[in-house]
């Protein structure tokens, strides 16, 4: 059976949450966030997923964006967590941990039956 990289499909549901979590460390711009996610083992983060997620959270009031001049190139848009974003992060972190626990429980059940 052909194995495909399942990470993009899985990431789709949690990219927003991961971005909020990374920004809890301090402000960052898009490509910087993509690189940090890549370092964490998510694989390449397509711009086509990254920026819509950031914009969505900006419009929800979870992120505050600010433009800075780049080094020579076009400007960079820096994102920072707002208080509302911090609250959302706390809630979503709990919800995700419960969900991840359920997935783990399901996997462990079938493993135990072997």
């Amino acid at each position: 059976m052909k194995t495909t990289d399942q990470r993009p499909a899985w990431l789709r549901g949690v990219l927003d949450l991961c971005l909020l979590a990374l920004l809890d460390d301090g402000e960052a711009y898009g490509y910087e966030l993509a690189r940090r996610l890549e370092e964490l083992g998510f694989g390449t983060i397509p711009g086509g997923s990254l920026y819509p997620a950031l914009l969505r959270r900006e419009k929800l009031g979870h992120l505050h964006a600010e433009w800075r001049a780049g080094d020579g190139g076009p400007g960079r848009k820096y994102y920072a967590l707002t208080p509302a974003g911090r609250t959302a992060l706390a809630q979503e972190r709990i919800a995700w941990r419960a969900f991840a626990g359920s997935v783990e429980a399901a996997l462990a059940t079938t493993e135990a039956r072997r």
Partner: protein
Amino acid sequence: MTAATWLERLAHELDALGVPAADAAAIVVEAESHLGEAAADPLASFGPPAGYARLMADALAPEPSAAGTAGSVRAAGRVRARAVAVRKRYRGRTVLDGVDLTVRDGEAVLLIGPNGCGKSTLLRILAGLVRPDGGRVEVDGAVGYAPQHGGLVAQLTPCEQFVLFGRARGLSREAAVRDGCRVADQLGWDAARAPVADALSGGTRQKLSVALAALGAPDLLLLDEPYQGLDLDSAQRFWELLWDWRDRGRAALVVAHAADAIERADAVVELGGAVALRSAA
């Protein structure tokens, strides 16, 4: 596609979607900055400009019922095509035995069934290429039909075919090329510099066939296995194109095998039993 071309098309698509100029400029500059730093291929990283523009426009102005997913509740449009008790025999064999089907505006209907159950025949009947032996067929408006194989002019480039097919639909040379390249672009294919149809891969010929069928935005799109054998990414782009199509209020009927298609279509009609599995609205 070069980054400059991609960014230019992105700006054009954002404008077409009515995104305010300041927001559009920010979106373009951010993408430009990313492409510069990541040294990434724009199509690989961001997808087709049209698709990315739509994602960003949606993120800017979220709608309560997000368009672009199957199963979102939309008002059923007017009936665009209807088949009632359609029968067809080929060489003494019954291919279609009393098939009923309705396609409405704003609906992407999937037609499934085992091999030889008459899916392609039904499409050809709706396209007006084959006469049914019995029953009634009504199609209201212009039809764009992409056969499973063939239908292309072997020795013409995609752009030449856009011009040729576009003329039949009253499109100027420029409008035909722009329309055709735009659909190709949505499917992740750069048609502008592609060689003659004979030199294209099977998958690319399928994309060309879809782009030709969609030329001039006919009322009803009939597609026979448009992404059979293509990779997952192409299948996804294909469905995004279809969602876009139906979100603009047009109708589509698609023959496909892939199990994933059932979840993505608005309604499913199964032949070889002719049962409506799920109907929209």
